[in-house]
Structures are given as structure tokens and as C-alpha cells.
């Protein structure tokens, strides 16, 4: 895999970037819904 | 055969008007005893027949293709892979059918949610695992639990054949009694966990949620005894908190109310004089 022509530096960077965005998306949903519940309670 | 005879006998014993509802091998939703429940039944049948029609067309096409275009019979495949016209048609037609279903459904929904002009209000509270009925402004309230017969038979390894118990698991000690042709408003809440109050013949089901008061209504047009069950998982004995509603004439209802009021007064007196913890509890709950 390491020597594979697939894993050039550009592709690695792109993979890292996509991963980061998706992790942030998941976190946003987790935190967002807890905040939503708190804001709806009296 | 003899088995179904036994069920039939049980049905007569329960004086249920829609006798077929309790027969064995029942296939469909029984017809209820309120306008709304019949309207819901009508909607149910309408959607059902629409689905049957669509099924005939779609399954017909599938079966035709499976029978006609067999590789083993030397069918030669065509090579088309789309048809915009066909795809537009089978997007538009379902939308039209859905609109046809949604209009009557919305009409019924609006009627269901119309709580105005009720003539009697009963507050029903769900507890683990019994129902409490409180006739507001009538000074009548009581608990309703699974009948003694059913309760004995339903214990694990009781050795009692449930078929020998009339209305097994659908019978209670104290029935909810309401007058016929009267718009009864039901206020629903719960004391511990969520329950749901449901009598199929009255056509409605609604959740009883602690801390929230839900509303629903029904107007039964035939005297009789109608049975239902808790319909929201509420713990260990969820399967054992039935509901029995007895619909009586208005005169009978007034009499029943009077006798219940007298009972209530008696219990209150007993509680004052004897200090029995049981009686005290009943009074506390009655308030």
C-alpha cells in the first residue's frame, strides 16, 4: 500500500481533509442536539 | 370448530356488538361504535384497496416479466436503459393517488382534533399497572385493574387454561361507564411512565404521559361493553392492564353515578373512623 501509486501526497492530503470535515460534521450533530434539548427545557 | 364456538360464547357473554371482532382467525379491523371509528375504518379500507390495485398492476408486471422473458425459453434481452416518458408517468400517478388519499385523511384528522362541546370529561391516569378514572366535577373516581380470574390464570405455571376464563386478560374489576350518544372528553396523563389508552371500538389511541395532559374524545352510539388494552410498553406488567368501557343509556349512567358517589362517601367515612391505610390511600388518590 505504502508504495502504491495510489497514495501520493496529494491524495493523502485530500483524505485527511475529507476526514476532518466529516468528524466535525458528526460532532456538530452530537453537540447540537444536546444544546437543542437544553434550550427547549424550562 | 368447538373452539370457535367457545369464542362465540365468550363474545355473547361480553355482549359485544361487532361479534366478528372476537372470533378466531380474524383478518381485518373490526367496525367500531363511534362515527369517527367508522370513518377511520373507511379510510383504512380505502387505502387498503388502493394498495391492492397498485399491487395488481406492479406485481402483475413483475410476474408477466418473470414468466415471459425467461432465459431458459431463449428470451433475447432488449437494450433500453431508460425512458423519460415512463419515468415521469410513474412519478406523477403516485403523487395523484397520494393526494386522493391525503384529502379525506386530513378531513378525518381535523374532526378527531375537534375537542369542543364535550358533555362529560373523564380524567384517566395510567399507573404501573392499572388505570385511574376521575369523573371531573362528579366526585367519582376509582382504580381499574385486571380482573381476579385473569390475574390468577396468567401467572406462570398457574395450570389454569386461559380458554376457560371469559374475556381472558380483557376484563377488569371496575369498568369505566359512560352514557351513550354523549361527547365524552378524555384527559390523559400518567403517574409514572408512559402508557397509552386504547379501545379499538372507540377508534382512538393516545399516549398517557407523566407531566403532560393529552386530550381525546369519543361519542359511542351503541350501548355495550368495549374492551382494550394499554398500548405503550410500560414495564413488567404492560400486557396486563386492560381497559373496559361500558356504554349505557343516559338514565342508567345517572344511576351509576349516584351509586358511585354514595360508595365514595362511605369509603371516606370509613377512612376517617378506622384509620385503615388502604382506605386512606383510596381517598388520597380520589382527590
Amino acid at each position, binding site marked *: *500500500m505504502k508504495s*502504491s501509486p*495510489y497514495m501520493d501526497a496529494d*491524495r493523502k492530503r485530500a*483524505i485527511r481533509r*475529507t476526514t476532518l470535515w*466529516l468528524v466535525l460534521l*458528526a460532532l456538530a*450533530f*452530537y453537540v447540537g*442536539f444536546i444544546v437543542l434539548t437544553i434550550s427547549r427545557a424550562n | 370448530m368447538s373452539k370457535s364456538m367457545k*369464542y362465540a360464547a*365468550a363474545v355473547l357473554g361480553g355482549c359485544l356488538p361487532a361479534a366478528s371482532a372476537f*372470533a*378466531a*382467525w*380474524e*383478518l*381485518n*379491523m373490526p367496525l367500531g361504535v363511534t362515527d369517527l371509528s367508522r370513518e*377511520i375504518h373507511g*379510510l383504512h379500507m380505502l*387505502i387498503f384497496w388502493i*394498495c391492492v390495485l397498485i*399491487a395488481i398492476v406492479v406485481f402483475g408486471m413483475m410476474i408477466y*416479466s*418473470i414468466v415471459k*422473458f*425467461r*432465459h431458459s425459453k431463449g428470451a433475447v434481452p432488449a437494450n433500453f*436503459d*431508460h*425512458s423519460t416518458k*415512463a*419515468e415521469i408517468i*410513474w*412519478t406523477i400517478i403516485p403523487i395523484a393517488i397520494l393526494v386522493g*388519499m391525503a384529502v379525506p*385523511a386530513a378531513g378525518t*384528522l381535523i374532526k*378527531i382534533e375537534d375537542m369542543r362541546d364535550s358533555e362529560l370529561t373523564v380524567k384517566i391516569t395510567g399507573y404501573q399497572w392499572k388505570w385511574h378514572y376521575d369523573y371531573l366535577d362528579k366526585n367519582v373516581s376509582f382504580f381499574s385493574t385486571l380482573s381476579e380470574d385473569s390475574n390468577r390464570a*396468567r401467572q*406462570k405455571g*398457574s395450570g389454569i387454561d386461559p*380458554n376457560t376464563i371469559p374475556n*381472558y*386478560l380483557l376484563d377488569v374489576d371496575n369498568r369505566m361507564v359512560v352514557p351513550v350518544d354523549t361527547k365524552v372528553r378524555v384527559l390523559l396523563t400518567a403517574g409514572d411512565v*408512559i402508557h397509552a389508552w*386504547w379501545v*379499538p371500538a372507540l*377508534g382512538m*389511541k393516545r*399516549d398517557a404521559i*407523566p*407531566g*403532560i395532559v393529552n386530550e381525546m374524545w369519543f361519542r359511542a352510539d351503541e350501548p355495550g361493553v368495549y374492551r382494550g388494552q394499554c*398500548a*405503550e410498553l410500560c414495564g*413488567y406488567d404492560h*400486557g396486563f392492564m386492560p381497559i373496559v368501557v361500558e356504554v349505557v343509556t343516559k338514565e342508567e349512567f345517572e344511576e351509576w353515578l349516584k351509586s358511585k358517589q354514595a360508595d365514595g362517601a362511605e369509603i371516606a367515612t370509613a377512612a376517617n373512623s378506622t384509620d385503615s391505610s388502604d382506605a386512606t390511600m383510596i381517598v388520597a388518590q380520589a382527590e
Partner: protein
Amino acid sequence: MSTAHTHAHAADHEAHDHHGPEKGWRRWLFATNHKDIGTMYLLFSLLMFFIGGAMALVIRAELFQPGLQLVDPGFFNTMTTVHALIMVFGAVMPATVGLANWMIPIQIGAPDMALPRMNNFSFWLLCAAFTLLLLSLFVAGGGPASGWTLYPPLVLQTGNALPLAIFAIHLAGASSIMGAINIIVTIMNMRAPGMSLLKMPVFVWTWLITAYLLIAVMPVFAGAVTMLLTDRFFGTTFFEAAGGGDPVMYQHIFWFFGHPEVYIMILPAFGIVSEIIPTFSRKPLFGYDAMVYATAAIAFLSFIVWAHHMFTVGMPLAGQLFFMLATMLIAVPTGVKVFNWTATMFKGSISFEPPMLFAIAFLFLFTIGGFSGLMLGVAPADFQYHDTYFVVAHFHYVLVPGAVFAIMAGVYYWLPKWTGHMYNMKLAKVHFWLSVIFVNLLFFPQHFLGLAGMPRRIPDYSTQFADWNMVSSIGAFGFGLSQLLFVYIIFATIRSGAKATDKVWDTAKPHGLEWTLSSPPPYHSFEVAPEVK
């Protein structure tokens, strides 16, 4: 693309390179290869299918006759709860993840998944999750018994099983999210040159959309159960009316997760069926673009229909109307899919190998589940159907002869590719017929029970429900036992069998890159990217 070239390269590669599989247990524990991890996911799912199935048989055995014969009501409730959690999170989802691991890199022409070590971590996390969940059956106070929906306040009465179950859900959720991230990253960054998004196989498309659903809703569920945990142990009152919270709010959050979850289970199934029907109809998939757009439309609608699971909680009229109309709308893209599959078979040249048999059964029986779904979407009628066996029949129709049949179809479709062996066709057809007969015997009568008024989640019932319950229980045992045949076929095929060709299926037009690789495929699927026209 050049098949010969790929093969030559793969063989060359394996000859002088230690990138082949490690020996013994290290191959599996430290697996980073997408095929090894895919295999582990599939075997895990098979195991869970049997554990969850055994629980279903406890349920059906108790319901065989009226009266309580075998278990007490508390244990019955535990069985319904854990059966559902295991089947949803342990059987169906890992099975589709296993198929994704095996097939997505191959179908897009990549050597492996983009994040192989995270792939390993997701799998072992899932095992940890289900160890915890199964442990929760044996702690003080009994296993979780509040239904898989875990509604408060009831769920807060659970004993020590609650923190275990919640932690299990957190781990399984984290595992799913990592799996989903891996799939999206792989699809977005690892496609072979020329493989534009609208040239991807439909299975890859459905998984891309499913992965986005997972990333959106698994954290929501994790948030909901976190709040349950703090309500139970740390004095918060998110869902407790007495403390200013709202028990109905939990249901809204749960179903905001729960409804997309349904599509998380069924969209990959749509993808599998969309691969199989064209192959055995010897005709291209009808309306590829429409299939992709319909999948996206279903995914979008899945976010705005959640409250149709809670018509009876006492929503305002406007809310009920909105959720009823939005729900009915889902029938449109779903209908497009069913019509397109039918149009694919129309004027084809159909043969009936086991994968096609399962796909055709899926087509009929999933559609039946769709019809009952349409009926349930009509709010006034739902007031009668809600929480009865009609609902049980509905979701089992879309999940068992729906999702599970599609997964079995996928296994029968790709098993020769994975193992390099053909399986016993005759036996697989016996497995199919037994499954399809018993699954209907099991679930069809439940429609009748529900309409006649039998509530779900009850361990004992009134005597008028006795006859159909008996039929349903017989169907359940028949269906359960038939699946032993499935296990036998799979393991027999792994061990031996006639050599499968690269193309495997003698179809007029092989579609998909998987058929250009050897059977079994080389360890790193595509070392050199294939050219896609």
C-alpha cells in the same frame, strides 16, 4: 480497461512482496485489509443474526399459546428489547458494512479503503459494544427491558444494565461513524480515473448516501442516550417533567435518528438489488440516474418524517398534517425504484440463480412492507394501527424479506468472487424456498393480529388471538431452522467447491469492475488503477 494487465501485475506483486496476509491470528486481530475486515464484519453479523434470532424464538415460543408458559414478563421484555438492538446494530448494519468493505474498493477500482487502520478499529469497537450489551443481560436487575427505543421514564427504571447498554450504544455508534467516514473518504478520494460519480455502481451510490445519513444521525442518538445517562445518574432532568424536562422531547430526538436509521438499513439493500437484477435480466439497469436521485430523495425525506412514529403523543394538528403528508411523499421515490427494477426485468432474459431468487422475493415482499407503510402513514388510521402487531408486521416485512433477503442475495451473488468457489446451487435454492415460505408464514398473520387489536410487546394475549399467533410461531421456527442451511452453504463454499471463473455469472454484459478481477481477488484489489471509460 485491461483485465489481463491487472492480473499479471497482481501475480507479480504477490511473488516478491510481503504485503500478503499475515499468518494465524495476527492476520485478523491486526487486519487492515478491506477484504479481511469485510469478512470479519460478515461473520460477526452472521453470529449476531443467530443470537438475535434465538431471542426472537424465545418470544415466539412464549407467544405460541395464550398463558405464560416459559418466561416471566420481565424477561420477555428483555428479549424484545435486546432482539431489536442486536438485529439492528449487530446483524443488519454490520452485514451491509461488511459488504461495503468487500465491494466498494473493488467496485471503484481502488487497492483498499482510504483509512485501513481506522477500519480495523471500527470493527473491534463493534465487538466490544456487543460484548457489553450481552453482558448487560446478566447483571443485577436484569437486562434492558424498555424496548429498543429506550423511552424515558420507563428506561430509567432499568437496573445496572442501563449504563452497560448505553455504553454499548456509544461504542457501536462510534464504530458506525468511523465506518461511515471511511466509506465517504474512500469513495471521494480513491476512485479509479474516469470513474465519475455518475458512473459509480448503484451499490456504491447507496452506500455513499447511507454513510452521510450515519454521520448525521448516529451522533444524535449518542446525544440522546448520553442525556438518559445523566438523567439517571447525575441528577439532570432533560426528559423528566418534574424537573422541567420533556419526555416527548426524547421521542423526537430518538426518531430524528430512528427514521433515517431505517433507511441506513434499507438503502444498501436497494443497492445490492440494483446490482443483481440487471445481471440476471441480462439488461442494463433501467433509469440509473433516476435510481440515484430517488435514493437521495429518500435520504432527504427521511429527515423530515420522524414524528410519524409518534402520532399518538398528542401533537398539534398542523404537526400531524405535516408529518402525514411528508410520510406519504416517501412513497414517490420508493415507487420509482420499484418501477425501475420491474422495468429492468421487462424485456430482459431472466434466469433464476439464488441471488436473483432472493432479489425477486425482495421486490415482492419489500413492496408489501411498503404498502403497509403507506397505510401507517395515514395519521387517523395510525391511531388504530399504532403499537399493534400491524406495525410489527410492517417493519419486519421491510427488514427481513427486505433488508435481510437483499443481504443474502448479495452474499449469494458475491460469495464465488470472494472464495473462488461456486456453492451448491441446489441447496441454495432449497434455502431460498424454505426462507420465503416460512418468512411469510411468520409475518403475514401478524397483520391480521394487529388489525384485530393485539398490542405489540405483550408476553400473553387474549384467547381470540391464539390461532394466528400459533401460525406465526410455527413460521418463526421454520424460518430460524432454515437459516442453518445458509451457514452450512457458506462454510462449505469457503472450504471447497467447483472453481469459480472471474466472471462468475454467465451474463451477457458483465457490469462492474469486480468481474474483471480474479476469483478470489488479489490481496490488494487494484494495485494499478483500471481505466474506466
